[in-house]
Every structure is written in structure tokens, then in C-alpha cells.
């Protein structure tokens, strides 16, 4: 089991209903994509928030990563919708 801080932003945060949490992840969760799939098993709010997986952006330790990237060594993983800054 790996312990990781998760942070959520914008409508991902609103739909999950919290801005951050710390989770113990099973070792079967290797990639960012697998993390999304795992979170969706945790309850309806996660399922709603992460329904369209392909639009969810992932950052590990504050750097963007693709969904196929391994999350090993992550202290902080952020999930959020496409950015709309500027």
C-alpha cells in the first residue's frame, strides 16, 4: 500500500466534495489512469467527477503527466479539468 496526498480542483473538487485527502492505494494501482479507475470504485461522487476520464488532467508532484505514466514516488497527485487560465 502506498500513501499519497490527492488534491482536486474546479469541478472535480466540487463533484468529489472535497479539496484534498490522503489515501492508501493498493499496489495494483500503477499508472495515473489506474488511479482514476480505482477512485471511481470509491463512491458515486468519484464516479460522477471522473466519468469522462479522458478530459481529467493529472499532475504528479506539480508536473503534468499522461494517464499512462506510473505514479510510483508521487507525494502529491492533483486531478483537475482542462485549464482555463490567461
Amino acid at each position, binding site marked *: 500500500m502506498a500513501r499519497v496526498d490527492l*488534491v482536486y*480542483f*474546479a*469541478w472535480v473538487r466540487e463533484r468529489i466534495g472535497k479539496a484534498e485527502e490522503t489515501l492508501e492505494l493498493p499496489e495494483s494501482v500503477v499508472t495515473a489512469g489506474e488511479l482514476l479507475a480505482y477512485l471511481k470504485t470509491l463512491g458515486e461522487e468519484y464516479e460522477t467527477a471522473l466519468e469522462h476520464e479522458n478530459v481529467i488532467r493529472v*499532475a504528479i508532484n*506539480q*508536473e*503534468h503527466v499522461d494517464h499512462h505514466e506510473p505514479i510510483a514516488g508521487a507525494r502529491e497527485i*492533483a486531478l*483537475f*479539468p*482542462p*485549464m*482555463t*487560465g*490567461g
Partner: protein
Amino acid sequence: MAVRIQRQDFDLAAEVRALSQGRHDIGAVVTFSGLCRDEAGTLSALELEHYPGMAEAQITRICEEAVGRFGLQAVSAIHRYGEILPGENIVLVVTASPHRQAAFDGASFIMDFLKTSAPFWKKEHGADGSAGGWVSAKDEDDSARDRWSKD
């Protein structure tokens, strides 16, 4: 290079001065100010959420890339967060270079990447008191970014 994420407004003239004052090697300074727009009068405010830490880190990466790519002499980027009213500033980018094209391209490049890869999200609050919705990312912003891809 100066990158700042802040709640308060910025002072355009002070930022340009900070970057160019006392130097004789700068030929061109370009500034880009992005403002909160509300043509229809239906918006009471934008609420800008950001990812503290990553926002600074990401904008710094974008600016460093622009400095190297266009040979900029100096860059400043300021992005506001929190509540922003129609007509107010959201973002400022300032670039300096010996010649005009590099300063224009550098500022344009930074804005294109800032739109699509800096962790900020805009929520609209309606003038009628409605809760408002999250602004969707635009395909045209992805296209604007992709035109900078090297072959």
C-alpha cells in the same frame, strides 16, 4: 525573470519599468494584458481558482522556454486569482528583446501556453445572482498552442 501569482491588481507601468529601467540594450518591449470581458452585461464576476505552487512552477517553465526559444532579454508574468470584476485585469505578460519580432512572438507564445497548461480555472457568476458555471476549455486555445510545435 519575474513570475507572480497574486490576488491584487498589477501596475503595468511599474512592471515595464522594473524590466527595462537603466538598460540600453533593449529595443522592444511588448506587454499583453488579459481582461475580464462581459459584453452582454450578464456577468457579475469571474472567480479564478488556481493550484498554488504548481501555478508558479508552470508559468516559470513556460517563460523559461520562451526566453530560450526567442532570445528574450527579460520576461515578467503576473496572473491574478480570486474574484475579478468585468473590466479588471486577469493576466499580464511583458517581454523585452533587442528586436520587435522576438518580443511579439515571446509574449504570444507565453499566452498560448498559459491558457492551456497553467493550472487556473474560471467560474462565472451571473449578474442575476445565479451560481454560474465553470468556463470550458476552448479547442481554439489548443490550436493556438499547437502552432508552436516544432517538427
